[in-house]
């Protein structure tokens, strides 16, 4: 066999293996989307139908004024995710700047934030539930925002430390010779050059908040329910509305799935920030 043939064979083998891997990893998501377009009758047929007449009924049920206000849940998720990631950015940019340029106490804060990332979430969940109950904050968006912000800060801090380390110190030095104080350096010099980084950190924070279940779940029971939590409501003690549930899951996965298509590079950077340097 010639070298060229050998190479071609190896490429064919690779492509087949990759197709199989992709099918195994994504078959759940694909089947779920298919189920969302099935009528209850089609769902309960055995063997399962892979080709059928699609219906939008499930999406109509989920988004219409049914027994649950899923539109409200989607809206809550959106608001909570946007505000939490915005606050996390405001908290971590100055902290990252202090850690990179001054060290000292900053290193302790960095260590604690990293420890927070690994700590069992339930150790916070129980006291937080009781504390927010005492302050009459249960079932408010603000309670969930407080906690989501907390859990976004570790990644956000790590990312900003990386971005600020990559910046040449000369820009700041020039500004400080011109008489700018630290606040001015931060807002006028640093923020503009950090904008792309702020964008990807915001996306990552959004996803973290959107996907969070434990705190959104225990801190809400009616008004501040998020989409991720709301998908489980289609399972009741009487019946499971499979089609509606599949539609609700599909709707709740769309925002995060979109991000992996449009912002894959920055997502990967953020998600590997804890372990891969560079």
């Amino acid at each position: 066999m010639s070298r060229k043939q050998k190479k071609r064979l190896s490429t064919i083998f690779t492509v087949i293996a990759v197709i199989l891997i992709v099918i195994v990893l994504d078959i759940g998501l694909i089947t779920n989307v298919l189920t969302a377009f099935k009528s209850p009758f089609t769902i309960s047929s055995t063997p399962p139908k892979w080709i059928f007449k699609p219906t939008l009924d499930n999406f109509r049920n989920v988004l219409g004024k049914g027994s649950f206000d899923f539109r409200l849940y989607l809206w809550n998720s959106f608001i909570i995710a946007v505000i939490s990631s915005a606050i996390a950015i405001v908290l971590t940019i100055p902290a990252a700047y202090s850690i990179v340029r001054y060290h000292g106490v900053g290193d302790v804060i960095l260590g604690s934030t990293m420890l927070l990332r690994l700590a069992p979430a339930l150790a916070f969940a129980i006291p937080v539930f009781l504390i927010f109950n005492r302050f009459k904050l249960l079932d408010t968006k603000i309670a969930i925002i407080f906690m989501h912000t907390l859990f976004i800060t570790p990644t956000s801090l790590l990312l900003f430390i990386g971005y600020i380390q990559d910046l040449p110190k000369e820009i700041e030095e020039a500004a400080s010779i011109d008489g700018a104080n630290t606040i001015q350096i931060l807002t006028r010099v640093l923020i503009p050059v950090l904008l792309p980084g702020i964008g990807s950190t915001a996306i990552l924070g959004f996803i973290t908040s959107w996907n969070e279940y434990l705190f959104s779940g225990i801190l809400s029971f009616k008004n501040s329910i998020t989409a991720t939590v709301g998908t489980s409501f289609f399972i009741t003690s009487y019946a499971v509305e499979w089609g509606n549930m599949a539609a609700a899951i599909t709707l709740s996965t769309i925002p995060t799935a979109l991000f992996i298509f449009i912002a894959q590079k920055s997502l990967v950077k953020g998600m590997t920030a804890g372990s891969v340097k560079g």
Partner: protein
Amino acid sequence: MKKKKIISLLLLLPLTIWLVAFALYPILYGLRLSLFNARINNIENPTFIGLQNYIKLFSNSEFGQALLWSLKFAIICTFIQMVLGILISWLFQRDFPGKGLATTLILMPMVVAPFLMGTMFRLLFNESVGPIAYLLSGLTGTTALLGMAWVNPTIIGADTINRMPFVFINMYSAMQGVPQELLEAATMDGANAFQKLIHVTIPTISAIFGITFLEKLLQSFLIFELIFAMTAGGPGTFTQSVSIFIYRRAFQRSDYGMACAASFALALILLVPSLYLVRRTTKGDK
């Protein structure tokens, strides 16, 4: 110089306030609560019982079983996912048509919330209507994939789909950094692709390999959302991970004192590996 110090502290202040208010204070409050008999009816005025909760916890075999289940789950999942992640990223070291799209599709399950993944699999693995359960019944001989006999492998499979992409992307990024000359030298010496992986690539990325391994292990040990959505720890307590145990104690039996004791016992068990991991990961930042 003094002024600089003050500025550095002021910059840290907002984040520190957040950490104190929503992490440190709850932890201390929970630590205190673990020494009380605190239930839903006496939460305003709990009774101090010293270390009773901890004693009860460790004499109760349910907690031990939950710890053991989590440990087994963590070891098996981490092993499977590290091996698959490394093999797939190794496959991705060569060029082939459609590589960009394939990478995106492999990463896709990683951005889906574990809870949504779990709810989804609860439907797809359902005994009577689940299409995936039907497809797999040829292999397993039954569609009851969430029953006693198959529930553990099913959960491990679901977690692998959800979390293996994380290992893949870590390993893939690391392998990009392996110097080409090293691989070429090995080729000259007559090493085949697999030998190069074992003797050149893996030793070169051993630092990131170690960090990913430990992080994966800790994450799997604490698994909650995926299982909570798929089986809620059932049938019975058959898939009760330690996080599910604590959740049930706190939010289903309203035994807050005991649940806090369990979560602190857990945090203590994990403290040493966590601190080690934090030291490893922050060292590179200085």
